[in-house]
């Protein structure tokens, strides 16, 4: 079955072949972890540890103070060195807990397998399990999963979608997870299904990942209790954007400015469902994730299972170092990721990629030639050229009235613009201005 399609979207150079065939390897434990306490959307977690505290794998080191937040756990045993302030990718300051890792104690730790009685699983149990394990959306949005799985009582959820699109170029971490851990991911989905009783459970995978589709088709046989559909989606960026994915797989359109539960859908990322499975069946909180290290600038691209809080310099070193030609380091994918000024950052729950790019020419903006490409490719059917022009001219009211808020910053418009206009940067600028000045 080939599902799609609606207008909008682009076909960037995917570069997935650099890492798509490489099995996931563990990234060696660093000597010191630097774990940021804001790895999720919402309020930063509040530190529970201080200098000198001994911690064991899975300990909560920072607690979510409010509903929209997430606990932070330590993936390794060790001793807290200090809590320091450092910038997150993007520049916002944040508390980091530094832990001097105790390798022996970490290696000795074992997670204890546990039984889950599916009949006992209800939405409350799900939300509690997710919250205790600090699970957030691992596709990049990092929205706390317990909140996502607690829709208002009026919402009737009848469709679940596994977001296995992984439409960002270079990234192959979800692909490898689906190939190697389809069973565990399906067990995670099974828990959500047990709580909500969906009438459709859709696994959405872009058709450029046939091994992943195959793995799910194979494993699906062991999950006869679920109304599973394995859907091959057209390879097109941003197929994995939630609203796009929902329309591609169910033909339902999420109203502008609203959340998926309004149309009865809950969608979750591959690694999020894996994390839920690990939390439920092993009592293992979210303390590691798979990251694709790739790009022309890195010696040996890899898919690494990385403890959260690992400094990215460790990943670079483990992948053979980066070349002199590297001009840009990006956390995330090339379409939406954040460029880093240095290697002084850590892997977080939402970081699917670490890219070393060697692009050399960064052409200046030239005047908009009104070609309409940005309009054609916008998955939200916005008028990106107008948003950019309003932002440039300081006409923020007009930008707002032209549906600025509906832009989810996928980057298609700027990717397609022949005049190299930094449309997304202008849009972000307008959004920030409006937020700060309260227009």
């Amino acid at each position: 079955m080939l599902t799609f399609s609606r207008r909008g979207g682009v076909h960037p150079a995917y570069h997935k072949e650099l890492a798509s065939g490489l099995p996931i390897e563990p990234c060696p434990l660093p000597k010191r972890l630097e774990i940021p306490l804001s790895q999720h959307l919402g309020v930063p977690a509040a530190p529970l540890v201080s200098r000198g505290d001994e911690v064991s794998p899975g300990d909560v080191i920072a607690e979510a103070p409010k509903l929209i937040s997430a606990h932070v756990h330590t993936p390794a045993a060790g001793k807290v060195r200090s809590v320091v302030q450092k910038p997150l990718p993007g520049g916002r300051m944040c508390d980091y807990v530094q832990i001097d890792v105790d390798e022996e104690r970490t290696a000795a730790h074992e997670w204890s397998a546990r039984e889950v009685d599916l009949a006992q699983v209800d939405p409350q149990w799900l939300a509690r399990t997710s919250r205790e394990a600090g699970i957030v959306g691992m596709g990049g949005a990092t929205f706390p999963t317990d909140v996502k799985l607690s829709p208002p009582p009026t919402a009737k959820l009848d469709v679940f979608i596994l977001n296995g699109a992984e439409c960002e170029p270079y990234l192959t971490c979800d692909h490898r997870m689906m190939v190697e851990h389809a069973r565990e991911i399906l067990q995670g989905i099974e828990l959500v299904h047990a709580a909500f009783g969906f009438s459709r459970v859709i696994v959405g995978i872009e058709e450029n990942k046939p091994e992943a589709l195959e793995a799910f088709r194979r494993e699906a046989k062991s999950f006869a209790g679920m109304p599973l559909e394995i859907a091959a989606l057209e390879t097109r960026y941003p197929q994995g954007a939630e609203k796009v994915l929902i329309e591609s797989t169910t033909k339902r359109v999420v109203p502008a400015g609203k959340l998926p539960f309004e149309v009865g859908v809950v969608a979750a990322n591959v690694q999020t469902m894996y994390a839920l499975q690990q939390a439920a069946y092993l009592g293992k909180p979210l303390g590691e994730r798979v990251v694709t290290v790739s790009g022309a600038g890195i010696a040996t691209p890899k898919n690494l299972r990385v403890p959260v809080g690992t400094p990215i310099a460790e990943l670079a070193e483990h992948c053979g170092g980066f070349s002199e030609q590297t001009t840009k380091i990006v956390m995330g994918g090339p379409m939406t990721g954040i460029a880093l000024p240095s290697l002084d950052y850590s892997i977080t729950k939402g970081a699917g990629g670490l890219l070393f790019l060697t692009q050399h020419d960064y052409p200046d903006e030239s005047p908009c030639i009104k070609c309409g490409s940005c309009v054609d490719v916008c998955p939200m059917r916005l008028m990106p050229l107008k948003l950019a022009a309003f932002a440039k001219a300081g006409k923020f009211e007009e930008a707002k009235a032209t549906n600025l808020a509906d832009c989810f910053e996928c980057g298609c418009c700027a990717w397609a613009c022949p005049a190299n206009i930094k449309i997304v940067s202008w849009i972000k600028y307008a959004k920030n201005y409006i937020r700060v000045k309260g227009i």
Partner: protein
Amino acid sequence: MSNTEGFVLQAAPHAHGRASVPRIMHAVNISLLPVIVISVLYYGLHVLGLYAIGIATCLATEALVKVARGRSWRSILDGSAVVTALLFVMVLPPSISPLLVVIGSAAAIFFGKEVFGGIGHNVFNPALVGRAFIAAAYPVQITTWTAAREVFGFLPPPRTLSVVEAATGATPLAAARFEGTTEPLIRLFFGQTAGSIGATSVLFILIGGLALTAMGIVRWRMVVSFLGTVFVGTGIFWLIDPGTYANPVFHLLAGGVMFAAFYMITDMVTTPYTNTGTVIFGAGAGLLTVIIRLFGGFPEGVMYAILLMNAATPIINRMNNRVFGAEAAS
């Protein structure tokens, strides 16, 4: 491992497609090669000189304006001035004097483009501004036509010329309008007839035009709505009174309609950018063309139709697309 400083901090996206303004302009220029070749075969080598003069004048005018404004002249290399020059020369009569090419090219760039602030800011199609300028200042020169050489010998002979026609070399459109004679359609299709330098050789326009359409540079919706409107509009009158009005196929093939469809109404800067907008523009330009051709004072109306629609474009562009999910939200 190299140093950890000096990394580019530009915001996402960190990837870019292959589209660029020079790429688009060069593609348009290259796509015009078939028309350039056939125009030389039809009207002689001096046409090549006219192209060269036009290009040189356009580039020089743009460079002068840039320098006078304290900007770099290098932006003239983006290919857009060459597009303007080629399109401008192609809509002139073959017997035009080189001096008028210089004047018109300079006017096209200066009044058509640079007074608005350069590429991207102009309201009117620069080549047509140049053409309109010459038409207003030198009305006789611009309506004196020469017949094309018989390059394709297998084509049927042209219609018999009246005495008046033989003297002024009227175009097939003028003949149809004022004399009631129509040129064989197949001759029009090859452009082997009296007409402007490049704008009448339908077959050769189609080669480049369809290539541009396949590349997405020409928006097919605009082409279809424009040609469709001309066809239907002229068709209605032909059905009512075939004795007075030429048939719709003739109207598609004669004059500048095909050239306009692929090379004039598709100028991105001066035409709408939404799908709905392009359809409105095409239909509007088609309708105006029909009205001017059938009822106006000139046999050909494409140029004024497009200039009028250029003026309407900012209004059409005020429309916004409906946001994804807007229907569901209301």
